């Protein structure tokens, strides 16, 4: 912290070179305005496009200081970035709402959410989710519903989310059906969410007693899936093939991994946002 700027400290975020972290402290009254200005002029060089302000130790924001923050926000917006606020106390948040400042500034609940939002919204970085769950059919609905909610949360439309839910349902049901049901032989589902596509990996632990079933399953994977009235699983796989952009399977002695890629609908049809 600088002696001449007791209310502000600007630091780098190692993993995000173009973002600076601004820690503001105490009462941001009229006297602190010039210190905020000086500190920004000195530290927030033009290579920083985006700033996240940690408001957790701020007790008051006077209108002059709010005006200054707005001015700084404008500078970042001109560079193609933004100044967002994070970790405000409830009292401060309420004051911001009463002043209407919540309509001007993007307010995040905590620093980490602010950084993750930046990585996703601005940098379009991939988000990774991993689930490991007992190999039981009864658990699959909870899992597929979770994935569907994640897709909606990440901006996939209802139709895509529903289709991805269907894919998850089928590949997880298969993983349960053709895999071991031993106590700790869980199913692992890895989800890689991008702006344009989602990749799903469902992996089970093999059950030596189910070799024949697995071979039939693999044949279905390779060939065009014919829909037999008496073959429930074949139908599931046909559905996944129709809904997914890519479907691959890898069988080893240890288990089977099914990999599915599903492009976002607007990617398939060339519709942009």
């Amino acid at each position, binding site marked *: 912290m600088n002696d001449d700027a007791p209310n502000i400290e600007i630091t780098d975020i*190692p*993993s995000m070179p173009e973002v600076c972290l601004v820690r503001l402290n105490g009462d941001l009254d009229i006297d602190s305005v010039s210190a905020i200005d000086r500190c920004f002029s000195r530290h927030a060089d033009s290579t920083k496009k985006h700033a996240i302000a940690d408001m957790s130790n701020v007790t008051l924001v006077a209108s002059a200081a709010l005006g200054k923050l707005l001015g700084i926000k404008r500078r970042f917006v001109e560079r193609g970035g933004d100044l967002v606020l994070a970790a405000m106390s409830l009292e401060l948040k309420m004051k911001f709402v009463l002043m209407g400042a919540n309509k001007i500034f993007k307010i995040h609940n905590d620093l980490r959410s602010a950084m993750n939002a930046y990585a996703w919204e601005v940098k379009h970085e991939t988000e990774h*989710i991993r*689930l*490991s769950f007992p190999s039981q059919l009864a658990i699959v609905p909870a899992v597929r*519903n979770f994935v569907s909610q994640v897709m909606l949360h990440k901006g996939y439309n209802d139709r895509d989310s529903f289709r991805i839910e269907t894919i998850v349902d089928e590949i997880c049901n298969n993983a349960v059906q053709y895999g071991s049901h031993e*106590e700790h032989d869980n199913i692992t589902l890895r989800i890689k969410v991008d702006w344009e596509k989602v990749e799903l990996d469902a992996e089970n632990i093999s059950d030596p007693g189910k070799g024949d079933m697995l071979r039939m399953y693999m044949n279905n994977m390779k060939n065009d899936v014919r829909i037999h009235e008496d073959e429930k699983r074949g139908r599931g796989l046909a559905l996944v093939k129709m809904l997914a952009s890519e479907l691959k399977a890898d069988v080893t002695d240890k288990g089977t991994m099914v990999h599915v890629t599903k492009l976002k609908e607007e990617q398939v049809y060339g519709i942009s946002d």
Partner: protein
Amino acid sequence: MKAETAYRMTVSFPGELDYIPLVRKLVSDVLLVLHFSPKFTFRSEFIVDELCNNAVTYGSSTDRSPVELLCETYSDRVEFTVKDQGGSSENIKRLRQAIAEESSGKGAGLELVRLLAEKVTCTIDENNLTQIHVVRTREGL
């Protein structure tokens, strides 16, 4: 189910607040499937919510390491472990304070977890890996 037969479920997700409602709902849905009562499930959902909120608030603020939730169900209890990597030393200090101070506003969530669960332990290793472990016994046992 034998008392020591455990079902284990882990969820690893980006340390972002918006994921938490989805994660707590997943846990709640799974507990209902495993025949835990709605009341027990609701309380467990609450515990998971508070633990994850805590991890996101106090955990890493400099990189995008994930939060990991481990949920182990036994016939007589459920155990939750939330692991989080690389919290800043300042945040770890605040977390320690929150754990130590019963009435600290910041740790209100954790304090509630303590009231709802039988056992709450927290470990922070030299690499700032934080682990909070909670044991909650099934009612009527």
